[in-house]
């Protein structure tokens, strides 16, 4: 992948900032998401809550289904492949997907190696629980990072934990002495130049979104205030009572994330939120997949 292409791919993520990326399973849902103000949609056969409920192996979606969603909307379309499954990624690239999510929500295909994302022309977004994981994915060619959260639960606790941890580590590296950066690189198992970037700019070298468990306008505002540059909403929208209204409210909450009065208005009459499962009630922690 040329340097130019990687820059262009990071640039696309910059255009998504301040926006909401919504999980959709049908062209109809994709149209609802676009009309509600989604800046991109994630095309997948089953939303994370249903993947969790169904159990078993979950894989890349049917390309035909993804193409149906590409035809239905004018905003960028993303799709998920399994961790390490570079052949699924090749297929998604062949249908000109705008972004590939190498995702822990699907069953991992490789328990040791992630995809060498530098071999692709299309951009990748990857999940990360902490700064080391984020920088390792970036070193492999990820052009965008998101927290892992705990998909399909409607419980925001893990996304909060990951975002706080990442920000705390960025602050630590930002204030470290320059001769300490070598050891930090070793400790995080990442190349020195990435640590140096974080030290100098006090941020990740790519755009960083929140994902996992975001279900309300308040959740979205919380994540943006904690430092996320936008949010992914998975099961939270189409598992709720009034998807259109909830989706539009979350979009507005991301733009005006510090205006509590407006957030109060946005939180009114949204119908039933997704039921949700607490983190400690679940047996399968998807966020643990892929380090």
């Amino acid at each position, binding site marked *: 992948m040329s340097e*130019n292409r990687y*820059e*262009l*791919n990071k*640039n*696309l993520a*910059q*255009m*998504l*900032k*301040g*926006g909401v990326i919504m999980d959709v399973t049908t062209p109809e849902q994709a149209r609802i998401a*676009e*009309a509600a*103000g*989604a*800046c*991109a949609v994630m095309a997948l056969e089953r939303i994370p809550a249903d993947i969790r409920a169904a159990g078993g192996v979950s894989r890349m979606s049917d390309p035909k289904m993804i193409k149906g969603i*590409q035809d239905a909307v*004018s*905003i*960028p*379309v993303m799709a998920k492949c399994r961790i390490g499954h570079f052949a699924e990624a090749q297929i998604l*690239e062949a249908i*000109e*997907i*705008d*972004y590939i999510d190498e995702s822990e929500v699907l069953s991992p295909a490789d328990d040791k190696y992630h995809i060498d994302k530098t071999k692709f*022309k*299309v*951009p990748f977004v990857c999940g990360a629980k902490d700064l080391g994981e984020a920088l390792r994915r970036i070193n492999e060619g990820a052009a965008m990072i998101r927290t892992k959260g705990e998909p399909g639960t409607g419980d925001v606790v893990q996304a909060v934990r990951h975002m706080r941890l990442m920000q705390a580590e960025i602050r630590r590296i930002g204030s470290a002495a320059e001769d300490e950066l070598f050891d930090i690189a070793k400790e995080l198992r990442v190349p020195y130049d990435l640590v140096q970037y974080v030290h100098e700019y006090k941020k990740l070298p790519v755009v960083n979104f929140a994902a996992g468990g975001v279900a309300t306008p308040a959740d979205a505002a919380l994540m943006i205030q904690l430092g996320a540059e936008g949010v992914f909403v998975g099961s939270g929208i189409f598992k709720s009572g009034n998807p259109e209204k909830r989706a*539009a409210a979350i*979009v*507005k909450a*991301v*733009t*005006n994330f510090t*205006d509590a009065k*407006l957030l109060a208005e946005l939180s009114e009459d949204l119908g039933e939120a997704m039921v949700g499962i607490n983190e400690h009630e679940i047996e399968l922690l998807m966020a643990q997949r892929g380090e």
Partner: protein
Amino acid sequence: MSVRIAVLALQGAFIEHEKMLSKLGIASFEIRQKKDLLHSFDGLIIPGGESSVQGKLLKELELFEPIRKLITEKVPIFGTCAGLLLLSKQIENDGRVYLATMDITAVRNAYGRQLGSFYTAESFGTMGKIPMTFIRAPYIKDVSDSVVILATVNSKIVAARQGNQLVTAFHPELNDDLTVHRYFIKICGGEQLNRIID
């Protein structure tokens, strides 16, 4: 020269514009809702992002009419990518139009999906070659006689000006070159004084 620029910050790459302005020593602030328009400013930037998102939020946050009014009152405005689409009177492959104040016909996602995104360098007006980054970009297919074409890439129009309105299909805020922002600041300083909107 102490001009102050407002940057529409509903969605997209608005921080990048603010950084370019600060490199030029120009003060800026963000517009996220109606009350932000109460500040005085000399020009407004509509950033890249998704035009459908920004267009929707403009309406729902009651910014649409006031901003449209500002443009017709000749407040300088600079739209990049999605901003270009928001200002276009017609979008060939999209039924929606938004502020529709500039006499241009745009084509949305004119170069296809992300694989069609590209980087090049071309002339901008008489100001020499500048870097141009196109991300799922539109181009301008048609302009009226009062529109000045400022740049073309492969014979497609990618930058234009009509009076107080400046648009680029590319993202000058993503490269280090300050030519386009400097040009816009000149429009803001030279052709418009401070104003307060009620």
